[in-house]
């Protein structure tokens, strides 16, 4: 009985650790790693190979690499390192280029293939038969068969689960965790705000891999054997089922899911009396796992414990009253002669041979709000996207303060101060308005893995400043009442405001706005326009695509007219109205 209970407890601890790691990767970071189980396997094999004696010692009954006979806890540490290292090559799959579902398929295929290779190649890890007689930790000093050892092992497994939970919560509740969730909700936008997607996703893979590896090490130390049948690709799906059922984006949900699915459901049925032919019960278990996944995704996609809204009040104390709102933007000296901040030379972009933007050369002077107008499909948004780096030009160069940035990825341009907004709604839906704004603040102490690990003490002061800025921003745009609302629940106009505010939170030097006023009340649009002019006076350079000519009349100078992918004319609106070809192309036709 004691053996049964301790076995359940150890399995429970291991499952919780694994589900937490997956919850971090998938639920928080949005990385769909269908190869998850191979990281647990890597840890288990590593722990086994590090703790076993050299394979010659057991008369070649099994063959494997390693056999270092390292003392506890080195095998467990090795397990975590193996899981983490194995994740590194997958950095190639998780950049911006490959669709998320395709990358997930790549990972799934990797899991199947890895299992096949290890199964077929005996010298590496004893192939199909797997490794047996893996020494239990401290077996030289303690008796692994004793009840005390078993209970102790269970306690250690559960303690590790608790430590994992606390550690991942610490990371998730930090500015870094906020960045991860932002990337999960909309990766292209996160990229445009200066988040390095490939690096963040690789961190998630490595962190999740390391924790999964540790779970494998803990497991193999207890059951003392490990073979390919233990880590078929479908085992990853069981863990996904657990996280989905428990609640995606909520670590408590992952714990609950671990208890319900791999532990409760599968362990419970393992002790059912055999019904029907051999293998019937296991087969039906898999069917049930499949039904659970599909059923939950249909009936309760948010899981039993849905992701919790992170209210700001809970995250930090209210900001003290300060004298006047802090400045929104770094003040830069406005030079006497307008300095060209951003310049496009011969910019060209073709889609399947059709030139959407054709040899466009533009220079944007510091402190000016340049308007970009033209009929639909004239290439305005395409030009903006190329300036921001979200779209690669097929020809031409882009210079930022005289330096070529044509090949610079979007996130690095954002870090240098070129930030864009999007024409379509692009708020981070499952982040509150506050979180949307805070996610954009650059160079936060807590917005890195290291900062998150160092904890709230390390980043709290920094965060408070950011919150003050966010509060001032909300105040200025009249959205204070909605600070703790999910951005996805706002009206269309309010979401546009969130986007503009978020872009401003980055303190950009160049702000690229793609139809920022669409759907915004005219009264408010005017106020935004005035605010933008104020920012320009402080040295910001703004490029704005906008259809509402009234807005352009009032705020933009100069205005660039595009048609058919080319620049047709440039000047003040008044001057443009006097030019026949402009009027012809755009104004009245």
């Amino acid at each position: 009985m004691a053996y049964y209970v301790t076995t359940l407890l150890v399995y429970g601890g291991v499952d919780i650790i694994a589900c937490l790691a997956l919850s971090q990767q998938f639920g928080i970071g949005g990385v769909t790693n269908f190869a998850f189980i191979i990281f647990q396997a890597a840890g288990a094999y590593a722990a086994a190979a590090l703790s076993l004696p050299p394979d010659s010692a057991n008369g070649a009954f099994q063959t494997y690499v390693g056999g270092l006979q390292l003392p506890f806890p080195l095998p467990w540490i090795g397990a975590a390192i193996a899981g983490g290292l194995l994740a590194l090559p997958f950095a190639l799959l998780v950049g911006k280029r490959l669709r998320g579902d395709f990358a997930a398929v790549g990972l799934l295929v990797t899991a199947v293939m890895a299992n096949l290779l290890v199964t077929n190649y005996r010298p590496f890890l004893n192939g199909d038969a797997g490794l047996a007689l893996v020494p239990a930790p401290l077996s030289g000093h303690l008796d692994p068969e004793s009840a005390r050892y078993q209970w102790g092992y269970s306690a250690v497994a559960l303690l590790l689960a608790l430590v994992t939970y606390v550690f991942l919560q610490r990371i998730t509740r930090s500015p870094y965790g906020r960045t991860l969730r932002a990337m999960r909700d909309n990766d292209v936008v996160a990229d445009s705000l200066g988040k390095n997607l490939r690096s963040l996703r690789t961190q998630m893979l490595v962190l999740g891999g390391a924790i999964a590896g540790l779970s494998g090490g803990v497991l193999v130390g207890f059951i003392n054997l490990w073979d390919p049948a233990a880590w078929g690709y479908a085992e990853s799906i069981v863990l996904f089922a657990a996280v989905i059922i428990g609640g995606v984006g909520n670590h408590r949900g992952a714990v609950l899911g671990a208890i319900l699915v791999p532990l409760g459901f599968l362990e419970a049925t393992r002790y059912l009396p055999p019904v029907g032919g051999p293998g019937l019960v296991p087969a039906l278990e898999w069917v049930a796992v499949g039904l659970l996944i599909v059923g939950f995704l249909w009936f309760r996609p948010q899981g039993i414990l849905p992701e919790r809204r992170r209210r700001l009040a809970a995250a930090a104390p209210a900001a003290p009253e300060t004298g006047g709102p802090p400045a929104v933007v770094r003040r830069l000296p406005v030079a006497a002669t307008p300095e060209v901040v951003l310049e496009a030379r011969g910019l060209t972009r073709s889609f399947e041979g059709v030139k959407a933007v054709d040899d466009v050369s533009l220079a944007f002077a510091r402190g000016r709000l340049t308007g970009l107008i033209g009929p639909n499909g004239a290439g305005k948004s395409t030009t903006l996207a190329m300036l921001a780096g979200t779209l690669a030009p097929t020809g031409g160069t882009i210079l930022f303060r005289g330096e070529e940035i044509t090949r610079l990825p979007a996130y690095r341009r954002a870090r240098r101060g070129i930030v864009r907004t999007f024409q379509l709604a692009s708020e981070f839906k499952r982040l509150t308005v506050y979180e949307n704004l805070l996610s954009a603040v650059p160079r936060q102490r807590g917005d890195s893995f290291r900062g998150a690990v160092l904890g709230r003490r390390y980043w709290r002061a920094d965060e408070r400043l950011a919150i003050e800025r966010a509060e001032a921003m909300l105040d200025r745009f009249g959205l204070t009442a909605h600070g703790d609302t999910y951005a996805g629940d706002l009206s269309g106009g309010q979401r546009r405001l969130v986007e503009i505010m978020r872009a401003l939170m980055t303190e950009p030097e160049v702000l690229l706005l793609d139809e920022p006023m669409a759907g915004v009340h005219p009264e408010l649009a005017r106020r935004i326009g005035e605010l933008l002019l104020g920012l320009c006076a402080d040295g910001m350079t703004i490029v704005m695509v906008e259809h509402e000519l009234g807005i352009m009349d009032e705020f933009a100078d100069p205005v660039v007219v595009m048609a058919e992918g080319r620049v047709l004319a440039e000047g003040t609106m008044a001057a443009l109205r006097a030019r026949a070809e402009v009027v012809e192309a755009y104004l009245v036709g």
Partner: protein
Amino acid sequence: MNIFLASLAFGLVSASVLAIASVGFTLQFAVTNVLNLAFAAVMTASAFVAYFFNARGVDIWVAALAAVGMGAVLSVLLNRFVYSPFQRRGTSPIAIVIVSLGMTLIIEYGTQAIAGPDNVSYRMNQGPTLAAGSFRLTGAEVAIICLSVVLMGAVHVLIRYTRLGKAMRATAANRDLARNSGIRTDRVVAVTWIVTGALCGLAGAVFAMDAGTFGATSTDIFLILILAAVFLGGPGEPYGAMLGALVIGLATEISAAFIVSDYKDVVAFVILLAMMATRPSGLLGAKV
């Protein structure tokens, strides 16, 4: 040289089986927008239906028709009761992939629960062996190659010259415009599930013939080959899938002859990941 010729023969058979599956898979993805990873599971279930009849004395080529029917019916049901409701609700592509994995478990292990865990073989006459030096093919293998070539021709005719096939391409290219042209795209999608499901079922039967023995989870690895062929040619590109199947089929079998046969699928795997990392739209691809 002898080894090469022998493996070339194997490769042609593999490529033929793979082409049927890959073209079905890629066409399904193009028109329905579902990345249906349960495709291989449907293959297995269909292969078992053929086995059911074959074991009761029906000639395997006749029993294969039952597999065709099973593939079509199962695929239509999958769409009707699973994918289509999820799509209508606006579920993300990644969640649909997770759903398709759930369906994989249900179909594969449901098949195992019914058919039992043991591997089975069709009873079939391999027919006279054709040989030119070490290039050898059994009669059944020749039949598989011919069948595949005929089917590829049929798919070509379907998508190039028939009203239905063009409607499938139109739906894949621009579903909204197809509806504005009066095409009932939900019907076109439903018919696509029938056609690609039939290809899937047939692929299951010929896969089982080629493999010799098979079980409920035998197609897990074959799915990698399908995906490799599909991604090599470009997801959603039927001609790309044909080319991809030829390359992958030959590459795996020929490499098997010169490396160790246990690792022949690694070639497909490496090609797949290399394509994903460098050129996700494939060699012929535009639709990504």
